């Protein structure tokens, strides 16, 4: 069986989650590799959620929020936008591939865009191969 990436998605409920729902109501088909967790705002995405997802076996993490300027909470997505490069720099130090973690803006009307993002990310991660994080951490427990 080919490698099926597991992607955890953190979606803000006003734009991106609604957009993902719209993809559903519009019956826009996309890869089933994403597992969505709904949050009030992308600013609620604590970087530890991403670290934990990777540690628990996610091959990729997708964070989606409203487009800059469109945040339901005025500027929550700007906080996310600032956290991401910090987090990316940190993940790079851990040796985790940049493409595994992705931030995208998906509005409530962009069902198609959500599907496109998921498809694109799934395929990119498929090319990248499975994440080593979980297996490394598990091996660490068994053998020194």
């Amino acid at each position, binding site marked *: 069986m080919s490698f099926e990436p597991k992607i955890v998605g953190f979606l803000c409920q006003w734009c991106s989650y609604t957009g993902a729902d719209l993809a559903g109501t519009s019956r826009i088909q996309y890869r089933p590799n994403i597992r969505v967790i709904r949050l009030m705002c992308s*600013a609620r995405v604590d970087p530890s959620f991403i670290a934990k997802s990777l540690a628990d076996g996610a091959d990729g993490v997708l964070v989606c929020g409203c487009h800059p300027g*469109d945040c339901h909470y005025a500027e929550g997505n700007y906080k996310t936008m600032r956290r991401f490069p910090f987090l990316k720099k940190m993940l790079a130090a851990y040796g985790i591939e940049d493409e595994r973690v992705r931030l995208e803006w998906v509005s409530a009307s962009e069902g198609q865009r959500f599907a496109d993002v998921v498809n694109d990310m799934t395929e990119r991660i498929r090319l990248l191969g499975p994440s080593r994080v979980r297996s490394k951490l598990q091996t660490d427990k068994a053998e020194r």
Partner: protein
Amino acid sequence: MHNSKIGVYLCNCGTNIAKIVDCPALREYAEALPNVVVSKEYKYMCSNPGQEMIIQDIKDHGLDRVVVAACSPRMHERTFRSAIQTAGLNPYMFEMANIREQCSWVHEDTWAATEKAKALTKAAVLRVLHHEPLERMSVKMCPSTLVIGGGIAGLTTALDLAEAGQQVYIVEKKDQLGGNLARVDLTAPYLDSARDLLTERITRVRENNKIEVMLNSQLKSLEGFVGNFVAAIQIQDGRPVAETKKLEVGNVVVCTGYKEFDAGRITHYGYGKLPNVITSFEFEKMLKAGRVETKEGRIPQYVAIIHCVGSRSQEFHGYCSRVCCMTALKYAHEIKSAIPKCYVSDVYIDMHAFGKGHEDFYKRTSEVKTLFLMYGKNERPVIRKADRGDDCEMLIEVNEKLSGEVIEIPADLVILMVGMEAREDSSEVARSVNISQDKEGWFIESHPKLDPVATTTDGIYIAGTCASPKDIPDTVAQARAAAARILGKIARGKIDVEAVYAEVNQDYCSGCRMCNELCPYSAIEYDEQKRRSKVISAVCKACGACVSSCPSGAIKGRHFTDRQIYAQIEGVLA
């Protein structure tokens, strides 16, 4: 927590879910999850029997937590919360797994979709284990209302509220009431005068001592929360120096209206270059003056009306402005009655005659011999000056769809039916009252179908064309609906505040003040004495920005705690 009893309910949603997701397998899987004591599937969980089943199980099995795997929580979370509340559980001891919009409707492969549904269900089960009962609070409701904008929507809302005995403040940017409607001559489809509609309302507003009208004024800032807003109004009206007035209001109705599309943005209509190409609003002026004539003062023999100027195009606005079709028909009528020998060509894309009396009006306009010419959505008529010897001023070239011919339409006067656009200051308004705008700049309603008057910010309502293009009846309906909603709330005297908000654990807060600047609602207060920060829960909108930013982990996002989300991560990755 470890002796929690969870019931998991899987909805088939008819065949919407069941035809893709292997529901029996999912049910079996859910049954084996930790703490799950019942797992059932049913055709329609949201139906009465479905809800009854959950309620009965809560009683029979002593369930203390419930998971429903069905549609989007945006659809039915509320339904199920109230169902479990009926059974005596706290409504927050509930979690939904979205296996329809984000699973069965978007995937084709049964195996993959079922695996995904399992993961989502497990995440919900693990999450619900960490749920805590939450209580709603209630705060007082100030009965005054602020209405922003003195057009037909604002006037109507204000009258309904004031006539029910409540104080209303109307803030109008211009020096007179009436808004865009004051620029209009007759109204479609019954051809009654806009002036009559307005004058009656304005007089009633002026005479009502419960309404305070502030002209040349605008909202500077709005602080507080539903029931307890403080609005700062900057009033210039007749004063040498602007005065700022603070008002306590419980609710705000935004009725800021629209502006017309700038026809000059479309070059091939020659607007601004050809003197007899005018916009609908310029034509309204002519009609109000009672003289339909060209710039040169001649009576036009041919008048062409071009629809969808700026609307329904890829280049400008994709949406339909909704009023232009009927307004164009109204022009045809008015022209024909002013100049019976005039030939009116109505150049349209589709005739949108959806409203009451509209189709009939369309027919009547046909009967007065209006020539309807259809052009393609992504094509555009091109206007040029007529040649010497032609019996007209201009010629409009268009690929006419109903005949399949490329034709030239003679015209002495061309009326461009300019569409509606969000006002330039709408983002300013949106920011100050904290509501969202869509990509076109229209204010977004709480729910496009089920809650088209409220916004996602409690206590802020929208009415009329600031939310989307609409005609007068729709505007008035929305305005009156807003008033009714507010009156209902005023009648209750107090308001319930959502139980989901952030709170600071005072035992862990070190007063580092990292969070203080982060809250867009200024819901975080710093106590200089205690050197601790605190969230005013009624103001908090639960975005969670402070929660994830608190370096001490002292701020808890109720119902979105770290623990709950970690559990969900563990669940989806299981």
